[in-house]
């Protein structure tokens, strides 16, 4: 199992460690609910060093990215971040990711940990097919630790440790700068829906940064947060997780991510299939689901309309904020109507639920 530079520190903090995507990661410290609520109300500190970073550089980097990804990388300016995806020719998803434009010929992807090698190989394959010569791909995942500081108090905590004017970094933008004397990329992005930053820094400085943030953040209610709460936080906001809402079998259009699929930007891998899907209408759609009866919808539980199974849960949990079972489901399009009442099969029983628009919380 791979370990992040903060592995020992998590154990010192009493974290419960689990295997995730080939990495030994903290799943919880004080408890999932407590950590979740701290991020919504104050701030949380996450080790996300397992995430992969892949650099794309060279004079033809942009034309390559336009052919490789579904979103329009041509709309990025220096210092801007974009949520995007890679598709297979049949429209299935290789991975979803963020794309950073450092300069006109220098970009960086942040990809799902478990997909890093697969993505890198896929990019190399697409590069060969594209015939573009002036592009260099680098898997630089080992050069970066990543710490996410998330929540409404994130700005106040980070300000105490940096001279970088954080107000000048807008949502989905980033800037290079020093925090606690450590050079890093400060990115106003995240996976919690509660605001905050993702910090990319040299692995050797990760422990120092974590301790300094912890020190400064304590009086603001900052707590360390594990993967357990990371999942409930993203689910309450209806954010997709690869392998659940997105996969080689689920296209971004089905997942409700049409906004990152720019069919009119020119040719890209998967475009033809996605154009056809859009013209014919997708057979299934991702929707939010909220329990009416008491119960927790979990991944793979069936969704029924009357006697007929019309879908399946792709993720589900008890919402720590709402204290009700919520989840995301993939449902046959004719039944994927907002406010529709459906049933979820939970241990052989059918429990009432309603299809709703995600996010589940503001």
């Amino acid at each position, binding site marked *: 199992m791979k370990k992040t530079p903060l592995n020992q520190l998590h154990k010192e903090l009493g974290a419960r460690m689990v295997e995730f995507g080939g990495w030994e990661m903290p799943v*919880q410290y004080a*408890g999932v609910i407590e950590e979740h609520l701290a991020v919504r109300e104050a701030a949380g500190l996450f080790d996300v060093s397992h995430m992969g970073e892949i650099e794309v550089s060279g004079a033809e980097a942009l034309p390559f990215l336009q052919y490789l990804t579904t979103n329009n990388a041509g709309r990025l300016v220096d210092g801007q971040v974009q949520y995007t995806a890679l598709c297979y020719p049949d429209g299935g998803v290789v991975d979803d990711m963020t794309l950073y434009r450092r300069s006109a010929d220098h970009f960086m992807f942040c990809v799902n940990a478990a997909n890093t090698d697969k993505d890198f190989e896929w990019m190399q394959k697409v590069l060969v097919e594209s015939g573009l010569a002036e592009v260099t791909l680098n898997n630089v995942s080992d050069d970066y630790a990543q710490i996410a500081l998330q929540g409404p108090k994130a700005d106040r905590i980070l300000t105490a440790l940096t001279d970088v004017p954080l107000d000048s970094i807008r949502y989905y933008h980033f800037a290079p700068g020093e925090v606690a004397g450590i050079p890093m990329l400060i990115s106003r992005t995240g996976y919690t829906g509660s605001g905050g930053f993702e910090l990319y820094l040299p692995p050797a400085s990760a422990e120092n940064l974590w301790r300094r943030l912890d020190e400064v953040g304590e009086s603001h209610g900052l707590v360390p947060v594990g993967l357990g709460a990371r999942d409930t936080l993203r689910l309450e906001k209806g954010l997709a997780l690869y392998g659940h809402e997105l996969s080689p079998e689920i296209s971004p259009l089905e997942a409700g991510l049409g906004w990152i699929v720019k069919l009119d930007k020119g040719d890209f891998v998967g475009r033809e299939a996605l154009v056809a899907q859009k013209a014919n209408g997708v057979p299934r759609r991702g929707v939010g689901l909220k329990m009416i009866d008491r119960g*927790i919808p979990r991944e793979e539980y069936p969704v029924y309309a009357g006697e007929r199974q019309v879908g399946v849960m792709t993720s589900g949990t*008890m919402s720590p904020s709402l204290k009700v079972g919520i989840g995301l489901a993939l449902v046959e399009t004719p039944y994927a109507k907002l406010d529709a009442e459906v049933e979820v099969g939970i*241990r052989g029983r059918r429990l009432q639920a309603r299809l709703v628009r995600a996010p589940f919380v503001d």
Partner: protein
Amino acid sequence: MDFPEELKYTEEHEWILIEDDLATVGISDFAQDSLGDVVFVELPEEGTEVIAGKAFGVVESVKAVSDIYSPVSGVVEEVNEELPDTPEMINTSPYEDGWMIKVRMNDSSEAEDLMDSEAYQAHIAEEK
């Protein structure tokens, strides 16, 4: 972690308190700690028959679903009606407020083979 001497324990981490032929059942401090925040509990109705070694209920933490097994056979005489509304009592008070069911046992000698506190702690140490 606390493992009261007056209780007996199962390998699946339930505890049982025997008073004549009435058995009170819950899950151990170790079990609640391993599960993490308990957010849902499903218990049988009064009058349901339970069988030693068979699941009688379910507890769910934020992340996982776990069956709860009955240590003895008999009929459910009382159910902790407060648990479905306050499942967190399993975390805060696993041996008192967090009890689950009371079973009128068919054969009160059935519980004799279960582990005492010391044996159970050795069992946990082995599992870790």
